């Protein structure tokens, strides 16, 4: 009996570790969703493709012999620049056309990148180079891999940087001002177009980082890889409260852990179903998300 309990806890901790690593990836992608939504109220369904683009930039950099410490920032910057172009060419002209046209455009952009990727790169999965020698560590019976540690440490570091950027820099404050009210921000002399471009850049750079980390984790990259993680990250952003930056982190981690618990203790094929079940539940119970609240105007 007591042995069973011990194994239950080993299992539980194992799923928590796996879930936190997985959840870190969701959180990184969800941050971009939530930041872009916060600033222009657009659900950018093409966001998962920035993650895919980041993975492929990382892939080609590593294949060409570049070390990881160079390939990683290159993937982030590359994904960020693609996002800046997409915002400028695709979203900016329709910014005032309303939400539904913007949403349809985002879906179209997502498909464009997926199929462009299949056409240019090929639909077959590429073997992602193992940039670091994999090693496993045992904590009792709980296994944690070096890649998992890297995922969690890098995610944590990027979040600290993002936190500092948003809360303590002038540009970050201008981002918060713009997301509250674009006209009010313009009246401060803030070039809101620049701030929006910058927000797309940061969001996509985080997704690009996630792309490389996932490539390292699963040793594979393919043009459709952004679809499901993109949707999951969207769920994570809604779960945490869309538009709220810490919400994306909480939503991502909760979703990652929930998935792994369901897979471990219940049925592994329910991995994706649980994510959408969580989305439906949160929309029914607390549509504003975990950290969401309704704000009233003060008189």
């Amino acid at each position, binding site marked *: 009996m007591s042995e069973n309990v011990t194994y239950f806890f080993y299992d539980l901790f194992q799923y928590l570790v796996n879930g936190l690593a997985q959840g870190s990836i969701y959180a990184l992608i969800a941050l971009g969703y939530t930041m872009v939504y916060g600033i222009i109220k657009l659900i950018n369904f093409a966001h998962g493709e920035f993650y895919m683009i980041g993975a492929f930039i990382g892939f080609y950099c590593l294949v060409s012999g570049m070390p990881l410490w160079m390939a990683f920032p290159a993937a982030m910057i590359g994904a960020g620049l693609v996002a800046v172009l997409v915002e400028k060419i695709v979203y900016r002209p329709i910014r005032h056309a309303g939400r539904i046209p913007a949403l349809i455009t985002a879906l179209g952009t997502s498909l464009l990148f997926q199929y462009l990727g299949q056409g240019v790169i090929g639909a077959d999965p590429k073997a992602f180079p193992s940039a670091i020698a994999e090693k496993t560590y045992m904590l009792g019976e709980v296994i944690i891999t070096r890649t998992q540690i890297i995922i969690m440490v890098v995610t944590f570091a990027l979040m600290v940087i993002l936190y500092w950027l948003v809360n303590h820099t002038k540009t970050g404050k201008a981002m918060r*001002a713009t997301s509250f009210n674009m006209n009010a921000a313009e009246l401060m002399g803030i070039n809101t177009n620049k701030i929006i471009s910058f927000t797309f850049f940061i969001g996509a750079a985080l997704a690009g980082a996630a792309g490389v980390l996932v490539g390292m984790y699963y040793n594979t990259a393919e043009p459709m890889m952004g679809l499901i993680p993109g949707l999951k990250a969207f769920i994570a952003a809604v779960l945490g409260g869309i538009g709220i930056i810490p919400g994306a982190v909480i939503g991502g981690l909760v979703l990652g852990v929930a998935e792994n618990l369901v897979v471990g203790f219940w049925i592994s094929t329910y991995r994706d179903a649980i994510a959408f079940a969580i989305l439906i539940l949160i929309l029914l119970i607390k549509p504003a998300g975990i950290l969401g609240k309704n704000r009233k105007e003060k008189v």
Partner: protein
Amino acid sequence: MSSPLLEIKDMHVHYGAIHAIQGINIKVNQGEIVTILGSNGAGKTTTLHSISGLIPISSGEILFDGKPIHTFPAHKIVAEGVAQSPEGRMVFPDLTVQENLEMGAYLREDNHKIKEDLEYMFKLFPRLLERKKQLAGTLSGGEQQMLAIARAYMANPRLLLLDEPSLGIAPILVQAIFDAIVEINKHGTTILLVEQNAYAALKIAHRAYVIATGEMFMEGPANELIKNEEIQKAYLGH
């Protein structure tokens, strides 16, 4: 005679099919407080938004210090020296009082002078000093209004546009806010004030324009308009 600081020439503004502003002319001279009066929907806020570049004009000209600014994006107009405290205050609720004021000075690099202006605003509105670490969303309506004015002042504008500073404010604070406007003007900033509280506005203004349904209805020195029978009937409630 020197040219006016702000000159609006035959300005027209359309919202879709609605002809909101139908050819108005306004001049604001250096050092003045000028007020634009008119009932709800007359086009006062539209006029200020057009000056600030938030609403494009259909025809006419807006000259600031002799330079046409009506084709500039809003943030460039701030750089030219025109700041606005908008209707409804629009302070950034998730930023502290201090951060809101920093946003007002967004384009400035003269850190020493920024600090001086900040201290001047805290002297003028001691409540803001007491609450400088508080989130702006937690302030009362009157305090938010003070913050909105101070935030606009922090851009170090040559022309300060104030839209309905008395709207929705406790009467006891209205006087304090109008006193502060006079003080800011004496300190060297030209002011264009839009108000529904015509009496309070006419008392502090040098000159006034009255707009009715997008057209200029009357203009003149404030101390004359305040005695004008038509104005008294329509806007002063006599």
